């Protein structure tokens, strides 16, 4: 009889009721198969025409004034800034871009909440929380988050767990570790203690009769034991060294691989470019830092065998204006964007839905086909969230938490035939 079988038998004999997650064997934890949602907040409000809604013409952006051609990769168009060209070339068949979103706010806090929940009003769950509530109930770190407060205000289903850094994670899963190389106690002493506890449990089982208090202690012990088994699964996945730049993402994906995390929320900043849009550009600009982070997500997911389970969602806070007098760009409720990244081979990517006019005027589209339509709808974050909720199967059953998008306005975002393209750019 192995340790696990012994624990289960002991529990049965004593009438212990397990927490549901406590019954999951380690093997199941490692073989989790649900979707993993990664939400990346482009903190500060990413400028759409520096990103997925490129433009041409004077005064919109520096590259448009200079006449630099827009990046094209398959059906995807991106701005010729940062490392966008290489990024689009590599991921074109995984990209589903949503442009021309009206956030109805110019506020950072309201915008970040609107992008992560779909709603401007308070009280709605961030999409990571909904996903964690559906696919990670009882998981110790179902929603791992390193993002600002506005985007992670919980609706009460799941508490966001701050992403620990690599050393913190190591200490969390191996409590005897004081650091990467030092232990608090001699490991041999810890092993003896654990062996003694196991022996005591054996004795309890042998006695055949457990008093209520003993039963309670046994229950707690077994629950703790199962949690430790889960954490041991995490320990086995921790690398010798963590990434310097992307430890938050790496820790989140380790959690997902170990079956303790369903949703990961992180942020990459530097997008509030009132002063100079060139802060986005170059090898160390905020765009390159963002695309490097997105690239790392997929590279690390491939290493950990998670690629087919991943949905990556990049959201900002609002759109931005044309160039202001300082060479920067201010807030604009028109022009917000989402970037969705799907697993390779999904057949749903290499598309753009929604658009803005030549100088980023608001435009309307047909909610079924995506085609420009003067009688169509203005896209909002609610439309996009509604579609993703249905795609992931995480739509809240409580009407008060639903997106409440009218049936006629529901968009067919995950139908490969819904395409707007980039009608404001020359063919």
């Amino acid at each position: 009889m192995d340790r696990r079988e012994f624990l289960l038998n002991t529990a049965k004999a004593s009438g212990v009721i397990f927490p549901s997650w406590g019954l999951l064997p380690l093997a199941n934890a490692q073989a989790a198969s649900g979707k993993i949602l990664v939400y990346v907040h482009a903190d500060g409000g990413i400028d759409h025409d520096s990103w997925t809604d490129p433009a041409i013409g004077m005064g919109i952006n520096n590259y448009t004034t200079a006449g630099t051609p827009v990046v094209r990769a398959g059906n995807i168009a991106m701005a010729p800034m940062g490392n966008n060209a290489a990024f689009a070339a590599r991921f074109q068949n995984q990209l589903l871009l949503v442009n021309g979103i009206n956030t109805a706010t110019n506020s950072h806090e309201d915008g970040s909440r609107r992008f992560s929940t779909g709603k401007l009003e308070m009280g709605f769950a961030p999409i990571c929380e909904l996903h964690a509530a559906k696919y990670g109930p009882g998981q110790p770190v179902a929603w791992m988050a390193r993002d600002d407060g506005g985007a992670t205000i919980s609706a009460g289903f799941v508490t966001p767990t701050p992403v620990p850094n690599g050393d913190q994670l190591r200490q969390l899963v191996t409590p005897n570790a004081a650091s990467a190389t030092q232990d608090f106690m001699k490991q041999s002493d810890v092993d003896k203690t654990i062996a003694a506890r196991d022996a005591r449990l054996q004795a309890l089982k042998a006695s055949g009769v457990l008093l209520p208090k003993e039963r309670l202690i046994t229950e707690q012990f077994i629950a703790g034991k199962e949690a430790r088994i889960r954490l041991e699964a995490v320990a086995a996945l921790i690398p010798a060294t963590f990434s310097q730049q992307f430890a938050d993402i790496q820790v989140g994906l380790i959690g997902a691989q170990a079956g303790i995390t369903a949703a990961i929320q992180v942020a990459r900043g530097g997008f509030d470019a009132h002063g100079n849009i060139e802060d986005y550009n170059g090898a160390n600009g905020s765009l390159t830092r963002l695309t490097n982070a997105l690239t790392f997500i997929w590279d690390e997911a491939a290493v950990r065998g998670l690629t087919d389970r991943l949905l990556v969602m990049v959201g900002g806070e609002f759109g931005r204006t044309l160039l202001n007098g300082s060479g920067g760009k201010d807030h604009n409720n028109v022009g917000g964007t989402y970037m969705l990244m799907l697993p390779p081979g999904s057949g749903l990517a290499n598309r753009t839905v929604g658009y803005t006019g030549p100088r980023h005027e608001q435009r309307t589209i047909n909610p079924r086909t995506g085609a420009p339509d003067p009688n169509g709808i203005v896209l909002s974050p609610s439309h996009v969230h509604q579609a993703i909720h249905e795609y992931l199967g995480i739509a809240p059953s409580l009407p008060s938490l639903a997106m409440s998008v009218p049936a006629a306005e529901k968009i067919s975002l995950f139908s490969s035939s819904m395409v707007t393209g980039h009608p404001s750019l020359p063919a």
Partner: protein
Amino acid sequence: MRGFVSEGGAGVLQYQPCVNGVMSQQLFPIDDKTPNGSLRAGVGAVRQIMLHRYRPLYVEMQGDRGRTTTTVYQFQRALGTVESCKALPSDIAPKVRLLANGGTPAWRLVVTDATAVLELPDKKSLKLPVGAFKAAGTNQTSKEPLARFYEAQLPDGQPIRIEVNPQMCSDGKSETAYGARVTVRIEKQAVQGCAARF
């Protein structure tokens, strides 16, 4: 006065001046005597949309700082994008007495002791007689709650009228609020904007 403003207990505005690139540890409660409550309105407007909205907000204003309190007569501008006393904006020269601008299309009026230049949307740069702006930027006008008007003639003889109304002015996009609304009228055409010095 240049420094950071935050809201204290009971909503009292508090001022922390910048001294040699460092934010003062002392908080000076503000007696807000700005016309139309433009200081509080400006702080509120920027705070509504700024990044990290609960941190102290950079403000430029005119008034008197006492030992323990500050009296503010004129709110000039608040910028949500300034994060510390180490990186204060230097886009307005000390000699500027009237500075107004507007967008879409962009225009700008700059008055100093020696020059008065109006840059209009069509890139036309017009020199105006400085004498017409004698009152602008003085201690007297900083305490003046009513709108005031400056009138002059363009080189081609066309009359120009500039109205400066001391009330909070913001575009709601740039994380900036100003202390006055400005309208420039040339014949039947008019452009509107905000003033950071007036």
